[in-house]
């Protein structure tokens, strides 16, 4: 296996290296393919990270996401070490040492307790887990479907294209929350069901159309022709040549998908329609049915949860926007 040195021709443009000697060509050919790919990937990543870091908006979003990840990780650690399980459990805990709940923030309960005597901070941190799980799972399902369907309908065209695009038209027009309210009221929806339904709906909807239009521009590029001339099958061309070129866009819509998934989950659990142990929306629901909704002297009941929803949604949206400015050449300042 050849050792890659800084003198490797890969690191320089042809203008700098000039014509390669046969030994050098031999040297390059001996580099295993995965190393070349890794190098290219790292180089691309470095440029993109640089571009991303230029944009303060994206960094703010990333910082917020990191903050919530820290909250998520800290909860089980705190439960094992500092917090008493009987008092701080997000669903079943109750602090008997306090006479009246909801109690204001104090040293034992940093964000106070809710009307049922449970610690708000613990609920807030615990719910981060389900928010991330739902958001990422929805985004994954969405992108998986949208990329497959988009690439296929762009590549094959004809009846497949017509079918999926008409389906997308219908899905776009459907008010998502309205349908989900009906479904959640009639069926027993858990967070996994919700993630899959949301992923399916947005995967067959707007995201597909956007990804397909990108796939159409990829399809007419010369390397697709080259792959076909070289004898590549349909599956090979779609998976190895078209899909990798759709990935940046798919990643972008993953970010926006996370935002809408978290928002929709919060609305549904705010209406009390989801079968879920604890979530930010459910915390506000608890406040609502206890009658403290407009009582701003009990601000800790509604502000932490609502702010958490807003901030996490904004964080993913901001990262998506910053990413958009990188991959969308027309938005670049340069």
């Amino acid at each position, binding site marked *: 296996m050849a050792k890659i040195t800084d003198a490797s021709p890969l690191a320089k443009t042809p203008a700098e290296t000039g014509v390669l000697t046969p030994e050098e060509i031999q040297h390059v050919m001996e580099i295993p393919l995965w190393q070349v790919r890794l190098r290219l990937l790292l180089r691309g990543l470095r440029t993109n990270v640089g571009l991303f870091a230029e944009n303060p908006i994206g960094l703010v979003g990333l910082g917020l996401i990191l903050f919530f990840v820290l909250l998520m990780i800290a909860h089980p650690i705190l439960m094992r070490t500092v917090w008493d399980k009987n008092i701080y459990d997000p669903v079943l805990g109750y602090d008997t040492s306090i006479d009246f709940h909801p109690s204001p923030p104090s040293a034992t309960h940093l964000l106070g307790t809710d009307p049922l005597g449970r610690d708000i901070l613990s609920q807030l941190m615990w719910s981060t887990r389900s928010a991330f799980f739902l958001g990422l799972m929805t985004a994954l399902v969405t992108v998986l479907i949208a990329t497959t369907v988009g690439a296929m309908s762009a590549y094959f065209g004809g009846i497949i294209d017509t079918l999926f695009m008409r389906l997308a038209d219908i899905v776009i027009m*459907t008010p*998502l929350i309205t349908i989900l309210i009906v479904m959640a009221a*009639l069926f027993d929806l858990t967070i996994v069901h919700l993630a899959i339904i949301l992923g399916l709906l947005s995967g067959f909807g707007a995201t597909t159309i956007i990804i397909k239009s990108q796939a159409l521009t990829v399809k007419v590029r010369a390397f697709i022709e080259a792959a076909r001339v070289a004898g590549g099958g349909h599956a090979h061309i779609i998976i190895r040549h078209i899909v990798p070129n759709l990935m940046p866009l798919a990643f972008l819509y993953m970010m926006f998908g996370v935002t809408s998934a978290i*928002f929709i989950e919060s*609305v549904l659990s705010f209406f009390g329609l989801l079968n879920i142990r604890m979530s930010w929306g459910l915390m506000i629901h608890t406040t609502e049915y206890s009658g403290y909704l407009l009582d701003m002297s009990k601000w800790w009941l509604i502000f932490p949860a609502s702010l958490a*929803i807003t901030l996490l949604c*904004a964080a993913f949206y901001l990262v998506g926007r910053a990413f958009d400015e990188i991959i969308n050449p027309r938005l670049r300042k340069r």
Partner: protein
Amino acid sequence: MRRYITRRLLQNLLTLFLFLTLVYLLLDAQPGDFGNIYASDPRLTPAQRQQLRANLGLDKPVLVRYGIWLGNVVRGDFGISYSNYPRKVLDIIKERAPRTVILFISINVLAYYIGFLMGKILAWKRGSTFEYVSTIFGVTLYTIFVPWFALMMIWFFAYTLDLFPIGKFVDPIKWLNAPVDANYIFNRMLLTAFIASLIIFLWTIYARRLNPAQRRPALYSGIAVVLVAAIAYWWSTGVGGYALDIAHHLVLPIVTLATVNFAGIMLLTRNSMLETLREDYIMAARAKGLPEEVVRDKHAARNTMLPVVTSFVLAISFVLDGGIITETIFSWPGMGRTLLIAAQEQDIPMVIGALLFTGVLALLGHLFADILYAFLDPRIRYS
């Protein structure tokens, strides 16, 4: 043009049919059915239970039931609401639909007008502090948790400042001795608003043909005359106070939802405008020495409009969803709140009726966007 609209109408009818099928299958797939609740009396013998189910038509296969149901829907028979027994579903829709439609229209008009205006200024001032502040403001509004935002609006404007009523449609105490009911007044208000906007629209078209010096004064005085006439009409009817009460209840929901929706339009217009500003004809217009405002408003902004209209199609469902949230929080008795309550109480006929209404509203919005698109972009040739 006419052929295009006809074709779109037919396509929309097909979509509506598919939507109806989807709704029926969705509701049919729920665990258990009404027959189980209806025939759950333990004193009934199995044969009697079977007879009861047969009377309800529940023993027939799904496709037959679907056919019967579709026939009834086409004839406008949605059955009787369980939770509002014995009122007919269509009756309830007729009563509450205008309240949702007025929210939907005024929110869209306000949000698009302000959003477009702000968006084009943002793009024009790219890189300034104003742009950063507005973008952060816009992103916050765009991703804010709508129920919470609505609550904050109620808390601040209705509860603390006491400027507006806290939710609901009318103030019952004021209406104790009212000579007419609220729906009569509300429908009259809608009619007035519709006629007034029609006259203003026609007047705008007329005023655009005047010479530039007369255009603005003519336009503004025309609008003022129409508004004064509308107010004078309500003054003369003697029930203007009641109309004012409804309008007073209407302000806060509209402002809340318009604020939430305007942010997305502003951000989209900004992006779209930034792309337009890179076009060669903008540089050409500047090189000709045209004033900045003319370049911005006449050359750039008008070409920015197309993607914004496209986004309207995507936004329809978003506004309808936002409508459910807003109506629920403001206790506004429109179709969104009706749907939520009906779904929670398993009132299937009402749910179907409300879903159908939502679907029709979305389709009409779609059609409107299509026609607008054809007007805005003469390059698109519709055959």
